[in-house]
C-alpha cells in the first residue's frame, strides 16, 4: 500500500492549495480526486478551457489556473479519476480508479470535498428536464453545452452567475424566478457593514444583475408555490409572484437554492457536526486551522461550511501549514508568521457571508415540502411518508430508514438527508441537532463486488502510476 504523510480528498481550491503548500513544506502528499483534471466544481476543467470558454465563464473562473499550474509543477502525487469510497482510522483510504479498487495510507488526512447543491424538492422536481443550476454549469464548463428554453428558479448568487454565463454563451434563460423576498433583503441589511467590507463581491453581484437586465432576462422575486408541470418531462414552471399566478412554458428547469457542505466523508469516520441555523445545514466542528475532533484529520473548503472559493483556498493553505507543523516540517513561529496574512484575508473574504446567507435564504417551500412531493428520489419516498413515521413514533433519520428506506438507495442519503432531518424535526418539535442525521456508511459511492474482490490482488498502487 502506498504511504504518504498527507492524503487530501478533493482537488478543488482548498485541496489544491493545501496540496501545494504541504508539498512545499516537504510533506509527501497524495491528492485524490474524482475528476480527470484538477479544479473541483468551481474551476472544473480550467486547465483545458479555451479562450472563448473563459470569456463565457468569467474572470473569476480563470483564477483557478494559478492553482492548477502550481499543482502541476509540484511534487504532489495527484491520483485523478479516483472515487474515494471509504476512509478508515489510521488513516486508510479506499478508492476506485479506472475500474480498479486500491488503497493509500496516510498519517494525516485533509477532507476537501466541497459542497453539494441543496436539494430543492418541489412538485415535479423529479421529471426529466429538471436539473440543478450547478449541473447546468458542469455541462457548460465540461463540454460547452448550454440548455435551451431554460428557466432558473430558486435563490442565491449562483443563479445570477449561471444566468449571466448563459447570456454570454448566446443562450439566455427564459426567466429568473427568485424565491427570496424583499423582506429577506431588508432583514439582510443589518449585515450591510460586513457586506461593505466585502464590497468587491457585492459589486460583482450587482454587475451580474445589470448584465442580465441589459440582456432582457425577466426576473421575478418573492416567488412562492413553485411547481414543475409536465407529463413525461418538464413542460412548464408554475409559481406565484407579485400576487399573480405565472406559468412559463420551458424545456428545462434549473433549480438552485444554495449549496451545503458535503459531509459524507467526515461523517463516515465519526467527526462531530452541529446545526448551523445561519446556513440551515450541518457543519463539522472545527478549530481555527480546520482540525476536527479526531487527531490528524482536517477539513477545509466548503465542506467545512459554505464560504466560497477564495476562503476555501485560504483555508486549504492554513490547514496545510498546521499539518506541516504537526509533521515536524515547520516551526510554530514560522507557521504563525505565514498564517497571519492568510487569517486576515480570510476575515475579509468572510465579511460578506452573513449578508448573503440572510439575503438569499433557502426556499421555504422546499424545506417544508407538500405531503405528495418525493424527497428521497432513490427509494421514492414522499414527504408525507416521512411525516407519518414521525407521528408513528419514529425518533430520527436512522429509524426512518427502517420505516421507509429513505436514504438507502444509490446516493446513500446525500440528496435527502437534510430534508428528512428538517421534516422530522418540524414534526416532532425537536431541534435538528437532537433529531440528528443519517449514519453514513461506506462505500460512500457504490463500488462493484468485482472491484472489491480484486482489491487485494492488485495491491494499492494506482494502476496508472500517476
Amino acid at each position, binding site marked *: 500500500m502506498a504511504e504518504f504523510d498527507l492524503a487530501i480528498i478533493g482537488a478543488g481550491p482548498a485541496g489544491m492549495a493545501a496540496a501545494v503548500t504541504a508539498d512545499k513544506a516537504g510533506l509527501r502528499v497524495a491528492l485524490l480526486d474524482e475528476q480527470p483534471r484538477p479544479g473541483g466544481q468551481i474551476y472544473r476543467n480550467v486547465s483545458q478551457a479555451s479562450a472563448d470558454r473563459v470569456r463565457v465563464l468569467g474572470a473569476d473562473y480563470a483564477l483557478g489556473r494559478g492553482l492548477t499550474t502550481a499543482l502541476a509543477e509540484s511534487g504532489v502525487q495527484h491520483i485523478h479519476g479516483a472515487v474515494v469510497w471509504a476512509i478508515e482510522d489510521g488513516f486508510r483510504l479506499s478508492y476506485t480508479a479506472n475500474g480498479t479498487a486500491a488503497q493509500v495510507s496516510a498519517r494525516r488526512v485533509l477532507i476537501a470535498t466541497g459542497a453539494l447543491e441543496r436539494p430543492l424538492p418541489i412538485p415535479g422536481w423529479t421529471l426529466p428536464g429538471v436539473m440543478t443550476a450547478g449541473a447546468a454549469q458542469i455541462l457548460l464548463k465540461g463540454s460547452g453545452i448550454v440548455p435551451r428554453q431554460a428557466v432558473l428558479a430558486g435563490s442565491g448568487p449562483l443563479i445570477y452567475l449561471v444566468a449571466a454565463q448563459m447570456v454570454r454563451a448566446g443562450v439566455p434563460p427564459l426567466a429568473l424566478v427568485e424565491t427570496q423576498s424583499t423582506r429577506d433583503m431588508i432583514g439582510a441589511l443589518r449585515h450591510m457593514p460586513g457586506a461593505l467590507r466585502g464590497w468587491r463581491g457585492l459589486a460583482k453581484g450587482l454587475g451580474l444583475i445589470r448584465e442580465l437586465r441589459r440582456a432582457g432576462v425577466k426576473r421575478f422575486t418573492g416567488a412562492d408555490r413553485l411547481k414543475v408541470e409536465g407529463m413525461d418531462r418538464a413542460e412548464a414552471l408554475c409559481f406565484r409572484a407579485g400576487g399573480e399566478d405565472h406559468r412559463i412554458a420551458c424545456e428545462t428547469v434549473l433549480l438552485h437554492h444554495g449549496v451545503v457542505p458535503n459531509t459524507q466523508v467526515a461523517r463516515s469516520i465519526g467527526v462531530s457536526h452541529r446545526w448551523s441555523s445561519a446556513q440551515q445545514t450541518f457543519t463539522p466542528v472545527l478549530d481555527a486551522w480546520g482540525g476536527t475532533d479526531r487527531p490528524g484529520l482536517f477539513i477545509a473548503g466548503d465542506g467545512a461550511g459554505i464560504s466560497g472559493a477564495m476562503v476555501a483556498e485560504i483555508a486549504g493553505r492554513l490547514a496545510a501549514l498546521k499539518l506541516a507543523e504537526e509533521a515536524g516540517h515547520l516551526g510554530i513561529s514560522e507557521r504563525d508568521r505565514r498564517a497571519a496574512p492568510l487569517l486576515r484575508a480570510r476575515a475579509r473574504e468572510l465579511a460578506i457571508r452573513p449578508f448573503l446567507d440572510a439575503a438569499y435564504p433557502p426556499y421555504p417551500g422546499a424545506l417544508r415540502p407538500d405531503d405528495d412531493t418525493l424527497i428521497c428520489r432513490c427509494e421514492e419516498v414522499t414527504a408525507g411518508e416521512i411525516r407519518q413515521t414521525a407521528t408513528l413514533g419514529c425518533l430520527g433519520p436512522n429509524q426512518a430508514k427502517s420505516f421507509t428506506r429513505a436514504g438507502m438507495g444509490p446516493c446513500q442519503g446525500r440528496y435527502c438527508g437534510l430534508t428528512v432531518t428538517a421534516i422530522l424535526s418540524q414534526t416532532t418539535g425537536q431541534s435538528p441537532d437532537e433529531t440528528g442525521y443519517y449514519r453514513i456508511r461506506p462505500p460512500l459511492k*457504490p463500488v462493484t463486488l468485482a472491484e*472489491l474482490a*480484486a482489491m*487485494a490482488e492488485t495491491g494499492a498502487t494506482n494502476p496508472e502510476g500517476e
Partner: protein
Amino acid sequence: MRRYSAFAIAREAARYHQGWERAWASPEPKKSYDAIIVGAGGHGLATAFYLGKNFGITNVAVIEKGWLGGGNTGRNTTIIRSNYLQDASAAIYEKARGLYETMSQDLNYNVMFSPRGVIMLAQTHHEVRGYQRTAHANALQGVKTEFISPARVKEIVPIINLDGPRYPVLGGLWQARGGTARHDAVAWGYARACSDMGMDIIQKTEVTGVRKENGAVVGVETSRGFIGTKKLGIVVAGHSGVLADMAGFRLPIESVALQALVSEPIKPCMDCVVMANTVHGYMSQSDKGEMVIGGGADGYNNYTQRGSFHHIEETVRALVETFPMISRLKQLRQWGGIVDMTGDRSPILSKTPVEGVFINCGWGTGGFKAIPGSGWGFAELMARGYSPLTAEFGLNRFKEGRFIDESVAAGVAH
C-alpha cells in the same frame, strides 16, 4: 390496540392511511417495576413479551439507550435456522424456529417470515464430514435437515458455480424450513404487543449504573433518574460486558464487529439462503431484490459498529467465485454490529452472582434466529428461576467445563 387485518388495510386505503395509530407508546418511566429489561432489541422485547404472555408479569419496563431494534436486531442478515450440533442448542434454536412459523399470527404483526430454505455449502472434505455428522445429529434431535449432493445444490440454487478452483461445492446441509424474516418487524411486532400489555418501552434512556443492597439488585441508575426493580434482565449483546461491570461481575465474552453489506437491487435470482462457512460468507436476496451478504467477524475486539474492509474483501472474493454473476453488482452499503462471542460459541442465559440480576448474552454472530426461543426461555428463567430451555446455558458452565461446543455449527457464519 386496534388489530391489524385485511379490513383495516381496506379502511385505511380509503382514507390515505391517515388513521393508523402509533404501534407503541413512549411513556415516562415510573418509579419502579416488577421487572426491568435493559435493551430493546429482539431478545429484550421477546423476553418482556413472554414475561407478560406466559407468566402474567406485565409491570415491566424495557429500557433502551437508542431506539428499539436499532442495534444488532436491525443489522443482521435475518437468517433463521436450527441445524446445530449439540442437543441443548438444537432445542432452543428449534423452539425459536417453530415460534417464527406462527409469529405473525401470535403478534398480529406481519414479520414476513419466509421459510425459503437454508443451504450450508460443504466446500472442503472436512466440511462434508462435519455436515454429515450434523445431519445425523439433527435427525436424532427431531430437527429436519439433510445432506444433499452438489447436483441437488445446483437444482436449488441455479446461479451457483459448483466448480470453483479454490472453493468447489462438494455438497450441502439443507434445512428446507429455515429461511428469513423482516428483522425490524420482529422488534416492532414484539414492541407493539408489549406496549399493548401495558409495558413501558423507554427509548433514548441509558442505564448508567446498577444499584445493589446486600448483594441484591434494587434498581438501575439511568440518564432519566433512578428506576427501582427487584428483577433485572440484561439483554444488550455486544455491550454486555459494560453492563456486567456496572452490576459487579465479569463475563467470559469478547465483543467484536461482525459485518455485512448489501448490493443494489436486482430481479429475483436466488430463492433460498446460501451460507459458505469456509469463506465466512453468506448470501440471500431481500424482498427488495438486494443481495444481502454477510461477512466474518473481525479478529480483534472493538465497539466500532463498522468492521474493517479486509474482511469484506475476503468474503467477496470467495463469493464472486461461487456466484460469478454477482461480480458486476454494485455494493451500496456496508455496516457492522457488535457481537458478543463466548469461548464455546453458545449463548449465556443465566442467573448471575448478583441476586435478581439475570443475563442473556453471548449469541455471537447468530442471535437473530434465536429471538423467540431466547425470549421464551429467558422469561421463564426470570419468572421461575429455572427453564429447561436455558438450563445448560448457565454462566457456571465456564467454571465447570461443561461447554456446549458449537464452533463448527456456529463458527463465524450465520
